[in-house]
């Protein structure tokens, strides 16, 4: 074999390895691209008299178009803004958008009896000036502004409450009238007498492992009659919760005496549920109580879950979307 032949073989092998590297890497890269940028599946409960809604948007890192805002048709006062530069993964980036619902902007004309406002599509606004309607999952906006209006600042929804939220890394409890753990009165007499609730807010909190609790102190004898969230059937056994009074687990219905403390504890277990591990949940666990005089009261605990977004979860999500598109 002469030198020219040797050189030819070296060049041919080098060319083959270069071509293999480019084709292979391009194929792997394509295989990991999201077919279309969009919102994760959201299951959100919120009230129109305060609180917040958080949306997560997933796009390919190569996508030059960034989401800068979101609006909801018919609710011009609910404005979302991108809350950070976005968290970048190997192939995708996730952008967070947050809307603080200003309770003063609620629409008092619409009563709760009409049922919650259900939002499935929002308008996404992009950095290049374009906008697009996007599926977001389901946002249930409970119209409580009317009720708050009728109670005329008596504090049924906001005198003693706290935001109990989970931002994925830290726990925080904020006092304020933003409608998180709220006590309220759904009785007909609410507008005619001062609100004198049979319980007072105790404490609340959540942790990054998806657990949380809300506690109230019972001041007059009441019966716990129900607990409701629209997303309990969706979550199934991926959401565990229990109600206890003075550390004793309760079953529905349960009579409670004055000076007892009532705690609702919950735990999201979505990591073991591939069907929902990339979904965003925001639950309002509304507990209902009946007083001896048949007056109905409620107390809400907010429970929120944001996906951990590990590389493996995002990869599985992208592959699922690619299969849907294929």
């Amino acid at each position, binding site marked *: 074999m002469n030198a020219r032949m040797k050189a030819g073989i070296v060049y041919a092998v*080098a060319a083959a*390895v*270069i071509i293999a*590297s*480019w084709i*292979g*890497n*391009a194929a*792997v*890269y394509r295989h*990991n691209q999201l077919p279309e940028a969009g919102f994760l599946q959201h299951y959100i409960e919120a009230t129109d008299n305060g609180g917040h809604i958080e949306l997560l948007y997933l796009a390919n*890192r*190569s*996508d*030059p178009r960034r989401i800068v805002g979101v609006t909801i048709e018919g609710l011009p006062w609910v404005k979302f803004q991108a809350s950070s530069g976005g968290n970048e993964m*190997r192939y995708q980036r996730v952008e967070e958008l947050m809307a603080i619902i200003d309770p003063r902007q609620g629409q008092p004309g619409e009563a709760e009896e009409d049922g919650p406002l259900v939002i499935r599509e929002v308008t996404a606004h992009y950095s290049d000036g374009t906008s697009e309607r996007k599926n977001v999952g389901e946002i249930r906006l409970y119209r409580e502004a009317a009720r708050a209006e009728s109670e005329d600042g008596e504090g049924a929804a906001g005198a003693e409450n706290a935001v109990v939220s989970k931002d994925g890394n830290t726990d925080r409890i904020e006092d304020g009238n933003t409608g998180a753990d709220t006590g309220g009165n759904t009785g007909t007499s609410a507008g005619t007498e001062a609100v004198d609730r049979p319980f007072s807010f105790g404490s609340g909190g959540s942790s990054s492992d998806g657990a949380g609790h809300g506690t109230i102190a019972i001041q007059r004898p009441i019966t716990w009659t129900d607990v409701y969230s629209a997303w309990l059937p969706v979550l199934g056994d991926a959401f565990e919760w229990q109600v206890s009074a003075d550390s004793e687990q309760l079953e529905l219905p349960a009579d409670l005496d004055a000076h007892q403390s009532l705690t609702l504890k919950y735990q999201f277990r979505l990591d073991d549920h591939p069907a929902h591990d990339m979904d965003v949940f925001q639950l309002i666990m509304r507990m209902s109580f009946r007083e001896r005089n048949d007056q109905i009261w409620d107390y809400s605990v907010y429970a929120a879950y944001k996906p951990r977004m590990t590389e493996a979860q995002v990869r599985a999500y992208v592959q699922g979307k690619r299969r849907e598109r294929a």
Partner: protein
Amino acid sequence: MRPAYSRIAWGLALELIDFRIQSFDVLPDALGYLLIMIGLAGVQPRNGRFVAGWIAACALLIESLPRLAGGPPIINLLQPQPLDSSQWLMMGGTAIVETIMLYGICVGIRGQALSEKGQAGLAHSALRTWQAVFGFGTAMLIALPFMLNADRSTTTPWLVLLSLGAFIAGLSVIVLVRKAGKRRAADEDEGEEGADLTTERVTEE
């Protein structure tokens, strides 16, 4: 040194060193490629490798013109930004054409040296220089697309090492061209100053 080789050497230096004041390129690549083209056109005797190098330099000059006119700056491999497929192909294509240009220069000089008596040393260093350029060029071309999929923390050290290697290989091409240029000058002087001096100069080199 013979002017043609001097131009090639200056052209390579301009292309190799990217000196910017803010976004303004003080030593534009386009000027470097133009000097290389002029230099390669003036090399005597010409051979097919020099012509291949000239065509490659011409292609690189055309590719670099938009940058001279304030077009998108050269891609910084250490601060990767999302590139579309055409930018990737352009980056890979440019690296291949640049390797062909350096092939033309190194192997062209080797061809000349082999055809002349007493230039075995120059032919040998031309071959070694080309092997270094080819090795780093190939390794860079293999490594580049891994930027698409591998962690930045994994690719960055490799790219730094390969870029450094490619830079040193580029410097060695400049040294080779200067050697070749001096050798040609010595040949030209042969008639005036005599064969003994020529031999002495070559030996010195």
